[in-house]
C-alpha cells in the first residue's frame, strides 16, 4: 500500500498540492536533516539546507524523472548537491560553533580541536566526490545503512553500491592526501 500511496502523493506534489508537499516534508525532512548535518556539522546550517533541498525538489519535480525510480534516493542526491554547492560557495564557517563540538570526558581540548579539524577535512572532501559516490559514502558510513538499503534507496543493485563505495573511498583518500601535501 505504501508505494502506491507515495506515488499518489508525488503526483499531487507535482501539482504543488500543499497537503502533499507538507506530507513529503514531514516524512523526509528529519532524515534529510540528519544526512545534511553529518555532512556539514552545523545545526542551523543543516536546517537551512534541509529546506533548500525541498525547495529544489519542488523546482525539479515537474521536469526531472529522477524521482520515478526512487524518490528518497533522488532527494538524497539533491541533498548531496546542496551540500556540495554550500562547500563550493565558500560560505562555510571555518570556526566550528562551540555548541557543535562535543568534548568527551577524557579528551583534551587540543585533541578535540584536532578531531574537529579532521572531521571538517573529511566533510569537505566528501563534497568533492561525484554525486553517486558522495551519496553512497554518506549513507553507508554517516547514516549507517547497509548495502541493500543504499541500493534500494538509489535504485541500483548491491554490486554497483560496492563499486561506488570502493571508488568513492579511493577518491576521498586521494583528495585528503592532496590537501595534506
Amino acid at each position, binding site marked *: *500500500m*505504501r508505494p502506491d*500511496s507515495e506515488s*499518489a*502523493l508525488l503526483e499531487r*506534489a507535482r*501539482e*504543488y*498540492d*500543499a*497537503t502533499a*508537499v*507538507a*506530507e513529503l*516534508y*514531514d516524512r523526509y*525532512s*528529519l532524515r534529510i*536533516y*540528519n544526512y545534511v*548535518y*553529518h555532512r556539514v*556539522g552545523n*545545526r*542551523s546550517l*543543516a*536546517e*537551512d539546507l*534541509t*529546506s533548500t533541498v*525541498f*525547495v529544489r525538489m*519542488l*523546482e525539479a519535480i*515537474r521536469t526531472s524523472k529522477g524521482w520515478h525510480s526512487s524518490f528518497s534516493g533522488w532527494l538524497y542526491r539533491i541533498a548531496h548537491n546542496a551540500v556540495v554547492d554550500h562547500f563550493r560557495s565558500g560560505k562555510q564557517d571555518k570556526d566550528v560553533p562551540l*555548541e*557543535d563540538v*562535543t568534548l568527551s570526558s577524557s579528551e583534551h581540548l587540543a585533541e578535540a580541536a584536532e*578531531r574537529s579539524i*579532521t*572531521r571538517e577535512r*573529511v*566533510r569537505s572532501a*566528501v563534497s568533492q566526490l561525484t554525486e553517486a559516490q558522495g551519496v553512497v*559514502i554518506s549513507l*553507508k*558510513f*554517516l*547514516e*549507517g545503512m547497509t*548495502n541493500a538499503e543504499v541500493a534500494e534507496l538509489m535504485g541500483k543493485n548491491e554490486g554497483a553500491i*560496492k*563499486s561506488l*563505495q*570502493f571508488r568513492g*573511498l*579511493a577518491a*576521498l*583518500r586521494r583528495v*585528503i592526501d592532496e590537501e595534506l601535501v
Partner: protein
Amino acid sequence: MNEDIENVLDKCISEMESGVPLEACIARYPSLAAQLEPLLRLVLEIRSLGQEPAPAPLNLRAGRQRVLREAARLRVSQQEKERTRQVPWWLNLQTLLRRSAAAAVVASVLLVTILGAGTVAISANSLPGDTLYPVKRIGEEVQLLLTLDHESKALLVERLDARRREEALAISSSQRVAELSFRGQVESVQGELWNIGGVPIRTSDETRVGDDVQVGTFVRVEVRSLSDGTLLAESISQEPQGKPVQATASVTPEETAAPTDLATLSPTATASPTVRAPVQSVPTSSPSPTPTATLTATPSPTPTVTSTPIPPRQVKVTFTGRIEQIGADTWIIDGRVVKVPASTSFDEGEGPAAIGAIARVVAIRDEDGDLVAVSIAIEPPPHTPAEPFEFQGLIESFGAEHWSVGGYSLTITPDTVIEGSPRKGLLAEVKAVRRSDGSLVAVRIVVKPPSEEVQFEGIIESLAPGEWVIEGVAVRLDSDTVVEGKPEIGGTAEVQGLLLADGAVLARRIVVQAASATATTPPTTATQAVPTRSSTPTMEPMQGPMVTQTAASSTQR
C-alpha cells in the same frame, strides 16, 4: 582486479562493523593490504563523524513554511502559465493593457473593431473578476469616448452607474470576494447599514465618510464584498451628480495616461460631469497592472481627456482573520486580498502561517487600494470542535493515508473504518470531520459495491479522458478497462462493465466496431441490441462470463 578489491573491501568493512579489528582483516589479504589499509582507516574516520548523533533540529517548522510558500508560488506560477496558454493572445488583456493608457484606448478601439459586437456582447453579463469583464469595461469606455452629444453622454453615464450598482448586487448575492466602486444616492442610513442607490452596504469604524454626506447626497462608494455577501464600505464620498466622466482602475503610476496622450481631443474649460468608473477594480490572485484612463466629458462636442492625479494615501489597517489562501505574493485573509511581499515580517510563534490559521495582520492600504502586509502574526488556534461532514462521491484515488472522493481529499487514520473494497470509480459514502485547518479526516467510508454487471451496445456520443458517453450512458474507464478497436464519436461500441450506484457504468471491456461495419449492419432481429441514436440502451445483466450476444458484434469477430 577492481572487482576483487571491491568485494574484499566490502567484506572487511562488514567485518569491522561486527567488531573484527582492522589489522585482522588486512592480515587475511596480504596481497591487497597496501590498498586496503588506508581505505579502511578512512572508513573509521568517516564513521566517527556519523556516530555523533545530530542534535535535534529546532527550526524545521520554519523550513516547512518556506517550502510550502515556494509550493504556493510555483502553483500560482503554473496556473498562470496554463491560463496564459488557454487565453488567446488577442484576448490576453493583461498583456495588452500593460502598455500605456493611451495604448489601451487605441487597443480597445481596435479590439472592439476586431472582435466586433460578439465578444463585447458576450462580456455584457460578466462581473468583476471574470475573464471578460475588462472587455466589458473597455467597451463602455470606448462607448463613452465616442459619444459626443452631451445629453446622450449624461444618459450613458447614468446607465453605467446603474450597471455598476447591479454588478455590486450580483457580486453580493453570489458571495464573491471583490473590491468594487459605484455611485448612487444615499437613500437611508440606519446605524452601520446604509442603502445607496438600492444597494445595501455596511459601514465600519474604518469606513471613511465624507463630511457632507447625508441622506439624499449623491456619493461614490468604495466597497469590499466579503464571502458572506456583505458589502463593506471603505469610503463614501460626495460626488457631484452627473459630473465629468472619469474612469479609474488600480494601476501602477507609470501607467496613468499622460495628459498629452490625447491632446488632440482638446478640452474646453467648461465644468463637466465626472463619473469615476473603474476599468478593473477587482484584485485577483494574480494581480496585474491595468491602466488608468481619466476621461473628462464636456458639454462641448469635442470630448475632453485629461489625467487626474490620484492623491497618494496610505492607510494602516489592522485586522484578524483566517488565512484562506496562500499565493506566491498574494494571500486571502478573512476574505481580503493581501499582498505579502518579502519585507513582510512573520510571527509564527503560535503556529505556522498555513491555510486555516488565524492571523493578525498589520497592513498598509496603498494608493491603489491594495492591502500590503507589514506583519502577519499567527494567533493561537481557536478551540473549535471538529465539524462533522458527510457526503457521497466517486472514489478518485485511494491509498494508505489519503483518499480522494468526490473531489474531496481525505486523510485516513488508523481509526478510519473502511467498509467494502475500494476501487476507483465506485461510489463511497463518507463520514468525516473537518479540522480547524480545513482538512477532512475520514471517520468511516462505506464503499458501495457495483449493483450488477451489465452489457449494452450503442453509439459513442462523446469521448472524454476517463469517461465516454455511449448511448446516453456515462461509461467510466479506468486502468483495468480494455478497449478494442478505434473509438470515434458516432461509432458503435459494445460495453461490458459494472453498473455503478450513480447510474454510470464502470467499463471492463469496450469493443468498438468499425464504422463501415456499423453502417452496413442491418438491425434485423428484435434481440439485436444495436440501438438507434435516439433509443435508450438496453442494459442486460450478465449471466456467467461475459460473452458477445449481438449479431452485429459477433459478425465482427
